[in-house]
Every structure is written in C-alpha cells, then in structure tokens.
C-alpha cells in the first residue's frame, strides 16, 4: 500500500467533476426527465393499516377521459416475494399507504382525480402498531403464515426471527462485577429524509424492451427487482440512473418502477411517476422503532466483566428488521469475555423498513453507549477512559465472532482525549456526552472501465450512483494511480447496458470497492501503456517503468529515448495496436470496520424542555481520506441526522395506524439554525486490503450521535431520559417528574 507521504493527489480537496452541473441546476435528477408523449402515474394507497382486500375495480378510472391506463394486483404475476407484495398489495394491505392500484393520465391532476374512481372493497382488520402489542399473548397476526425462525411446529407469531450471540458466562461476569448498571431504551421509527422524493420514468417498446430512468442507489438492483416483480427477464430491462437527491439506504428498493413499466405497457406511452412528500413518509422505508434493554457490569478499575443486550426491532409489514447487524454492533467497540445478545425481528402494520445508514446499529448502540455512560458515572471514571480501558483493538475477538484486523477505535479515543474541544471545560449550564460509533462496512461487486481519449485524457466508466461526491474520489484515485493531473480525468456513472455489473451505492462501499476496481483498471492501463512504449522503443515491456504519468525505461536499461506520457502514447496508438482501454471488476472483501468517537455540549431549557446544541465534535477512522472534505461531510451529515433523531424526529401514529406527521412541517429534521458548526477530525489507520487504505466512511457517522446526545442531556439534567426523541414535551415531563 502507498504510504501517505508518497501520495500526490489523494488527500487533496479538488472540485468534484459533476459540481458545475449541480450548482447551476443542469444536473438531471429523478423527476427531471421529460419525454415526448409522456403521461403521469399516481398510486392509490390503502386508507387502512391492516385490511383484507376483497376486490379492486379500476374500471371507473379507465372510463375517465384522459386516463390511459390503470393497474392493480391482477396485472402482476401472482408468484412474488415480499418486495413484490410491498410494491402492490395482494391479499392484504399491511400498512396505511400500502399501494393498491395505480393509474396513468395525461396530467398529474387528472391522474390524482382518477384515483377516486377506483373501487376497493376492504375487510378491515385490527392493526398491530407496536412491539409491545405484537409480542403480547393473543396478538393479532400481521402474517398468519409467519412462524418464528420458520419453525412451523410452533404457533404463528409476529416475531419473524430471534437471533442470539453469546460468549462466556454473562451471569458469572455480573457476579464478579463491583458495579452493574442496566436500562431500557426506546428509539422511534425515523425516516432517511432525503430531499428528493422517489421518481422514475418508464417506457416499453413493441418488443417488450423496457427502459427505466430513476433516482436510485443501485440501478442494477432496480433491474433485478423490476424484472422479478414483472415476471420478465433482466435482459429486457435497461435502467439509467439519474442523479440522486439523497438515499441513505432508502433508495435501494423499488417502489414505483414496476408500476410505471406496467402503466407504460398498457398505455403505450412513457409514464413518469413522482411521489409527493407525504407518500415518501407513508410508504417508503423508514427504519425500525426499537425497544432495547442493556446491562453492563464492571470492576472498580473499569474492567467490564459482562454485558447483555435484548434488542427488539420493528420490521414493518414484512420480515427483515436490521436486528442482526444491531446485535453484531451493540458491543463491537469492546473487548469482552462474557456477554449475551438476543435480537427479535417483529412484524407490525407499518411500512416495510428499509436500510438507513448503518442499518440497525444506531438504535442498539444508543442503548449500550448510554449504559456504558451510566457505568462511567457510577465508577467515577472519565467516559473516554472507561472506553479506552475496554476498547477493542487489532486481534480482539469481535462480539460477532472474528478477530478484528487493524482498527482505529483506540486512535479515535486517544485523539478525542487530546482534542481541545474535550480538554476544554464544559460550558456553564451545559452537559457533555460522549459515545462510540461503529459500522462494519462492506465490499461487494464493482466494475470499472477506464477509457483513454486520443489526447490522453481519461474517462472512468463505473456503475455506482454518485450520492456524495464519489466521482471525485474515483478521479483522485485514478489520478494517483496513473500519475496524471486530476483535471484530466472525468468519471461517468453508466447505465446497466454500458458498464459491467455493479452493486449499489450503499454499505459505505463505493470509494472502497468501486475505487478498488478503478485502481485496478488504471493498473491495466499502465500495463498496456508499458507494452506500447516497449513496442515504440523496441525493448521488452518488463524493461519499462511507469513513473509520474509516463513510461520510462527502467534504470539500467540501455535506451536513449524520451519518456512517453499517456498523451504521447494515445496520439500514436494507431501504430501500436489501436485504442487503449482498461478494465477491472472486483468482488471486494475486507472492507475494514469503521469506528468513531463523538461528543456534544448542549443546554436544556428547564422551563420548556428545549435542547440547544452548542457544540459537536466527531472523530472517525477513515482508513485513508481520499477527498477529506467529502469525508468530513459524511461525518457532519451523519451527526446532523443523529441529532435530529435524538431530539425531534419520529413517526407519530394515531390508534388506527395512520401517521399523523407525514410532512417536513411535523417530521422535524434539523434546519440550519438548529445546529452549530460540526467539528471533525479524521483519523487514518489504513485498511490493509485497499490499495490506498480506504475504509468506508458513510455510515459510521450516524451510530454515535444518539447516545452522545442522550449522554449530554443526562449530564445536563442529572438524570437519564432513555426514550427518544428527547423532544421538549418528553424532556419537560421528565424534568417535572424529577422535581416532583
């Protein structure tokens, strides 16, 4: 791996290649495509949280002038999976907002009015709206066929799965402890809150060839999912990823695309579908509401002797809450001999959860990092010292099994301890709270082609939608590898028929895995350039070096020639065999875990319960920051999302399972005036499996803020508020009940 001091462009902060398009309004996002003859699709959504569908009749809508197509469950193959049942309800609607039918009409208003002409006959059922309700004896079943862990010998249950992790003997560990703390913690359902609603445009031609333009984190996944739900072959589906206006995990699954294709097929027109904000809240992926219990014990010197966690996660209407990763991350920062962790995946009549930035980890880590903080208080130890004493390090056996390779947790904790924002006293009237963050990060499959223009400039063709500046990272890694200026390289996110297969932009994998493919494709270019130079110079290819962007004879090789730059080689490539292109594909392993430490100083207005965040600091191991400004941006954005979730964001349901705050007015994401500047420090403990040491950085940032905020509120108030969000009414109630 290249050492930091050898790097010329990695670690610099150039302007992103797609930047001008995005600051001028030229960039095309999901709803920006306009095709001739295009019509507009809208979805009819269930008014009930739980009901059996007796019949759906779209004929009334079709009879309206200007309505060109209408679809419902009978227009889709009966055989389907949970995703298919989520895209269009079959026998039952499972949440308020579940799609039941769709129409396409010449104007959006007409399409909306046509929805009123669709007749649906429902048999309304009692909804299951919380974990408490779902696991109670005699609970109504969301899915009558569901058995815990698939064990049909047991009665049907709303608990889809139970996961356990154990090591040593927790009870024995607690017995050895001098101090034991425990708590119960609740975190509400929260939405990714990307500013761009889901949008797509679909067409289908007479041969059945489908083209979909859409805003997605993974257009290859849209291809797979759309083909499966429509019962067609992926060879019939081409997906073009538009620019994407935020995803955070929420744009990994299809919602509209199969409906738009079907409407296009029936109307023989291009169909555009754009969700409104209310639909985004009601019918796309939030993350799980959770109910967690955490218990941790330690010796007087701070050595943790045992920990247990019980984690129950709402999955929404279909199994698949991120409770597995929750269980695996809850104790990840610690080196422990005795623990047991149990996780429940629980069905409720709410939207099917989707991934949200380190899915499952923020809720679990909120519980344990609050408990660890209480432990530090009980022991009279600095919360960072307590964490350092028990911190996982290279060689520590992670709670989920394997031994950690080189990780940066201790480096982050030590950096925090020395940071002026931590060594400075807590401001008058404020509380300070610390927490650790963690995420696994993933690798997966990526492809890249590197194309050379005849002037030696470079185009990177890859398949990872750019949500946060990844094109810039690709260009930086290519510039570093090829030894040419960043400005001579551009990166292009190609459609599913113009580049090799690529997994989604998610799991903090793009800079790591697609970056790895880009680096290897550049190495392919270099190998070819060396051959071309060797041909030109009549020497062997192994006698050629690639140095600082040009081919040179190796030291000691007797050749009186001028170096050949990429441009020189490109200009003459007709004589040496034709154009040059490089390619690589990877199934990248060893993404390298990412750890962080966050802390915040905040004040609580004891008369109103309102929290004023005065300062926030995030320290994170990035392995190596390719473009530090975008790494900082990930850390700052994750902190802001976490603060929003900790303080105000939540899904509020009425007794019928209808979300009451389905808009940005009452689903309160932080606004600019709510936040201070968010200070960041990047720690670099290089990941040995990546050519430049990259670890994923996108998800770890949201795993610490919930607990850091709760711990700061606890410090400010002198007692723990263990349920999020710590909204003003909840905090004031807690303050009043403490003051009695």
């Amino acid at each position: 791996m290249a050492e930091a001091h050898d790097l010329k462009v990695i670690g610099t902060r150039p302007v992103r290649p797609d930047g001008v398009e995005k600051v001028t309004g030229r960039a095309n996002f999901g709803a920006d495509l306009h095709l001739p003859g295009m019509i507009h699709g809208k979805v009819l959504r269930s008014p009930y949280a739980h009901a059996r569908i007796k019949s759906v009749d779209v004929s009334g809508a079709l009879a309206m002038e200007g309505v060109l197509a209408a679809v419902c469950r009978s227009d889709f193959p009966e055989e389907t999976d949970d995703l298919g049942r989520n895209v269009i309800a079959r026998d039952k609607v499972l949440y308020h907002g579940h799609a039941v039918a769709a129409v396409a009409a010449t104007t959006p208003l007409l399409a909306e009015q046509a929805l009123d002409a669709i007749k649906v006959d429902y048999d309304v059922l009692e909804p299951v709206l919380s974990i408490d309700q779902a696991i109670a004896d005699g609970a109504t079943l969301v899915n009558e066929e569901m058995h815990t862990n698939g064990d049909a010998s047991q009665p049907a249950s709303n608990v889809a799965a139970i996961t356990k992790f154990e090591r040593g003997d927790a009870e024995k560990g607690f017995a050895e402890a001098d101090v034991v703390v425990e708590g119960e913690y609740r975190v509400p359902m929260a939405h990714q809150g990307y500013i761009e609603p889901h949008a797509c445009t679909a067409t289908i031609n007479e041969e059945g060839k489908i083209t979909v333009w859409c805003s997605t984190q993974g257009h290859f996944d849209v291809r797979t999912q759309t083909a499966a739900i429509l019962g067609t072959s992926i060879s019939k589906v081409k997906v073009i990823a538009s620019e994407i206006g935020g995803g955070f995990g929420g744009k990994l699954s299809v919602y509209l695309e199969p409906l738009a294709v079907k409407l296009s097929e029936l109307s023989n027109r291009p169909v555009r579908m754009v969700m409104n904000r209310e639909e985004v809240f009601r019918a796309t992926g939030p993350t799980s509401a959770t109910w967690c219990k955490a218990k941790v014990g330690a010796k007087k010197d701070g050595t943790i002797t045992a920990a247990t966690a019980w984690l129950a996660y709402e999955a929404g209407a279909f199994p698949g809450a991120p409770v597995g990763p929750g269980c695996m991350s809850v104790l990840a920062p610690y080196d422990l001999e005795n623990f047991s962790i149990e996780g429940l995946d629980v069905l409720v009549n709410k939207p099917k959860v989707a991934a949200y930035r380190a899915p499952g980890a923020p809720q679990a880590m909120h519980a344990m990092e609050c408990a660890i903080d209480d432990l530090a208080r009980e022991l009279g130890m600095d919360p960072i010292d307590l964490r350092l004493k028990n911190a996982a390090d290279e060689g520590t056996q992670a709670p989920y099994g394997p031994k950690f390779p080189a990780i940066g947790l201790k480096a982050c904790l030590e950096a925090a301890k020395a940071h002026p924002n931590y060594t400075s006293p807590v401001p008058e009237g404020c509380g300070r709270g610390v927490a650790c963050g963690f995420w696994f990060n993933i690798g997966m499959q990526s492809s890249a082609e590197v194309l050379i223009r005849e002037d030696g400039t470079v185009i990177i063709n890859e398949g990872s939608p750019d949500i946060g500046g990844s094109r810039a990272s690709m260009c930086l890694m290519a510039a570093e590898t090829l030894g040419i200026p960043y400005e001579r390289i551009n990166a292009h996110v190609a459609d599913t028929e113009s580049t090799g297969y690529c997994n989604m932009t998610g799991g903090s994998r793009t800079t790591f895995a697609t970056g790895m493919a880009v680096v290897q494709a550049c190495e392919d270019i270099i190998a070819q350039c060396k051959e071309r130079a060797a041909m030109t110079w009549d020497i062997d290819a192994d006698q050629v070096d690639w140095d600082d962007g040009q081919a040179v004879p190796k030291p000691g090789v007797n050749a009186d020639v001028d170096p050949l730059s990429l441009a020189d080689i490109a200009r003459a490539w007709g004589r040496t065999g034709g154009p040059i292109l490089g390619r690589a594909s990877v199934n990248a392993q060893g993404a390298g875990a990412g750890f962080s430490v966050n802390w915040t100083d905040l004040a609580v207005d004891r008369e109103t319960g309102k929290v004023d965040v005065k300062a926030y600091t995030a320290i994170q191991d990035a392995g190596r920051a390719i473009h530090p400004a975008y790494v900082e941006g990930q850390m700052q954005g994750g902190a802001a999302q976490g603060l929003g979730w900790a303080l105000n964001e939540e899904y509020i349901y009425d007794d019928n399972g209808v979300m009451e705050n389905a808009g940005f007015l009452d689903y309160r994401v932080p606004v600019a005036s709510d936040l201070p500047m968010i200070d960041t420090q990047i720690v670099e403990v290089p990941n040995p499996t990546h050519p430049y040491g990259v670890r994923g950085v996108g998800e770890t940032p949201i795993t610490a803020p919930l607990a850091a905020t709760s711990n700061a509120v606890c410090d400010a108030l002198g007692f723990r508020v263990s349920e999020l969000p710590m909204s003003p009414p909840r905090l004031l109630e807690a303050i009043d009940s403490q003051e009695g």
Partner: protein
Amino acid sequence: MGDYAYAAPTSLEEALSVLEAQANDGQRTQILAGGTDVLVQMRSIDKEPRTLVDIKHIAETNALSIGADEIFIGAAIPSAALNENDELKGLLPGLIEAADLIGSTQIQGRATIGGNLCNSSPAGDTIPALVVVSAVCVIASPGGSREVAVGDFVTGVGENCLESNEILVGLKIPRPGNNSADAYLRFIPRTEMDIAVAGAAVALTLDEGGTCTSARVAIGAVAPTVLLVEAASAALVGTKVDDDALNAAAAACSDAASPITDKRGTVEYRTKVVGVLCKRAGGIARDRASS
C-alpha cells in the same frame, strides 16, 4: 364539481363583484393573499376546485399607513415587507415579531397577517399579537365596509365571521404611546419552520415610574381560539412587572389555557409552557416600554 379558476381583480369593487358573480354561478371561491396556507390545503386537505380570487392587486389591501393615532396594515402585505419597515417595527415590535416567526424566509416573502388571521388556526402566530394591540379588522362587504375586533373575528378552529362575499381589507391598530410596548413569544421544537405549540403576546403601558397602567395578555395554541387573559392583565396592572407579577400572570395564563394533546404537544406541556412564554414575553414588553 366546478373547475379551478383564477381571478386577479384590481379594485375592491371588482373583487366583490367577482365573489358575487361566482357565487351566483354556484362556483366556490377562495380569497388568495400570500397563499402559503391556501395552496397547501388545496392540494391536501380540501381538493375541491374553486375560483381563487387574488387580492394582491388591490390598492387598499397593499396600503400601509402610520398615522398620528392609527396604523393601517393592508391584508395582502407580505411579512417580509412589514419586517423591512423600521418605523412599524419600532412601534409594534411584538406584532412584527409574530409575523416574522411564520415560516421560513421564503414563506415570509408571501405570507400575510391578513391571511394568517383568515386561516383562523388556533396556532396562528399573529392573532394573539393582534389581540393585545387591540387591532380591528376592516372588512369590505357588498353593502359597504364593516369593522370587527380581531378578538371577535375568529369564531372557532379554522372559522371566522367573514362571509363568502366579503374581503378582509386590512387591520387598524391604535398607535401605541411612548411608554407602551408589545412582545410575542411562541414555543416550537426547532428554531424555525414549526407551528406554534403555544404562544403568548403581551402589550403593556408603563407610567413614568415604571408601574404598569394597562396590560393586555393573549395566548394562542392552547384553546380553539386565541384567548385574551383578563386575569393575567390584572396581575400586571399596578405592578412594576417584576418577577412576582410575571409569575402571577403566567399562572393566570396556565389556568386559562384549555389545550388539546396532539402531535405537537400535550395538554400538560402546553398548559405549563404558555405560562413560561407569558412570563418571558411580559419581561420583554416591560423592558421595551421602559427604554
């Protein structure tokens, strides 16, 4: 069901005749000022087509005058324009604060005090602020013009005494004297963009010695309509508006409140916080009146 239509009359007479003609045709009408409530509601809660009668091209609804005895604020003037008027801000800081609190900068560019009043939400920020400065609604009717005190204008949640053939032209407010001042505070969970969970407006007059000679206290978002809290006013009059007096006024506000629990707050929360807001707004009004 009728169709959507749009009319932009340039005089009050024309506007009134549009309202009448549409009514005669059986077409629903709705007056459009800033549109920040109307357009949102038209796309979500109540989608029935209607004729939108834009009153922003009428001289009277855009009029702003600051006289020796009286201030007039046209119903179609956006909050941002009011906030840019330093003289008005100096005379009615509480009212302008209330107008300035409604929504973002972008909303400020459109939203009007008249619209906030006609929307008649229990949480409308300008309503308590208008009540404490004794504002009067000037209403154009087919038969001429009539005046209604703001406190009597709003009759229920989203309801007011404006007939479908009438237009709110503007608000008349007695010019505050030198030793008088107003203040408005509301509580929201964030720093911006939210609807008031509770609000309190206080207007005071002090004598030379700093003793309160008159006071009006009104609270919002804690009852179906804004409440003028006489007991809170009484707690302030005759005092130096010190902590004891303010605490008494706060308690009176909490006593007067009869809020509901909803997605924005609980009964207990609103009841307590409206008192806190009264106390804080009272302190601000006192400091303003004595400076």
